[in-house]
């Protein structure tokens, strides 16, 4: 049980990253590849957050009494992830717009059927 508790977050975030990489490497549909890229993004965000976690501590917001500097978690990864999520959404939208253009030019989203773009 303790082993699962200690490794659950690393395993889930690493699993998300690996699933995303597998999708990017194997799938041929462009939309699925973009979904895979976003899987990697989400996995990295979860990984950063759980590296900053300290057991038994709370969020670094001193708005209620009883929270002092000795019982808060690391704020730096959270600050990183906070902006990374929005950037991830913007990059996802940009990738989807490029996918729309690719579909308009080639009438297919299958990357192995698009000429001059092979694995």
């Amino acid at each position, binding site marked *: 049980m303790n082993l699962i508790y200690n490794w659950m977050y690393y395993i889930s975030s690493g699993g998300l990253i690996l699933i995303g990489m597998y999708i990017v490497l194997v799938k041929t549909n462009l939309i699925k590849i973009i979904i895979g890229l976003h899987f990697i993004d989400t996995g990295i965000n979860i990984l950063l957050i759980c590296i900053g976690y300290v057991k038994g501590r709370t969020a670094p*917001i001193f708005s209620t009494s009883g929270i002092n500097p000795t019982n808060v978690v690391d704020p730096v990864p959270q600050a990183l992830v906070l902006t990374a999520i*929005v950037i991830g959404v*913007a990059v996802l939208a940009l990738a989807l717009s490029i996918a*729309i253009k690719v579909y308009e030019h080639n009438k297919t989203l299958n990357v192995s059927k698009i000429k001059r773009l092979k694995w």
Partner: protein
Amino acid sequence: MRTRKIVSIIILLIIAGGFMITFSQIPFGKDKINVANYYISRGIEETGAVNIVTSVVLNYRGFDTLGEVTVLFIAAIGLGAVLFVEKRVQKHTSDNKEDKAKRASLILRTGSNLLFPLILLFGAYIFIHGHLTPGGGFQGGAVVASGFLLIYLAFPKQSINKKSSSVAESLGGLIFIGIGLLGLIFSGYFLSNFLPKGIPNTLFSAGIIPIIYIAVGFKVGFDLTGIIDDLLGRSK
């Protein structure tokens, strides 16, 4: 296809092994705070914001946040450039059947009429209270954009006024940079917290942080709304 699968799985197994070796060295849940100790212990008195994440994002690392807002802006511009159309194709087919088919359901229309102002209010609450509660300009902006997305889904023919939305967006960016330059004038370095800190844990505290977060909220909200508008504008 099959060889590609096998090769990919082998590569991923190697990467997974690397992951395991790396993260077995980083114990989960142990205290590994080094750099952030300074922020945690000195953050409130130096910045006046009780939310340490906010004080890291906007005060200690304010310049990085300016860069990240710029990345979002460039992504929105790139999307607009990729999906550029000379003029929005507006077919004036007065076909009533098609019109009815294009209209969203009554539940969605009524619900979004009711919810849209509340979503905007919630988003504004999140980015105004960014220095007191979990939240801030990025999250609040995303909530505002989700409200606009709801309107786009419920009323397919409506669209935001592009001009005023881009004015609000540019104003957000200009306020961010302007406050940074004012800090350069008043206390010698870019984005310094030159306003009075106030009493921590009250709304009017933390100097420039709430102002910058409001600007970031407007910027992110209208950036994402513009992205939604560009993406939906092309759907035929």
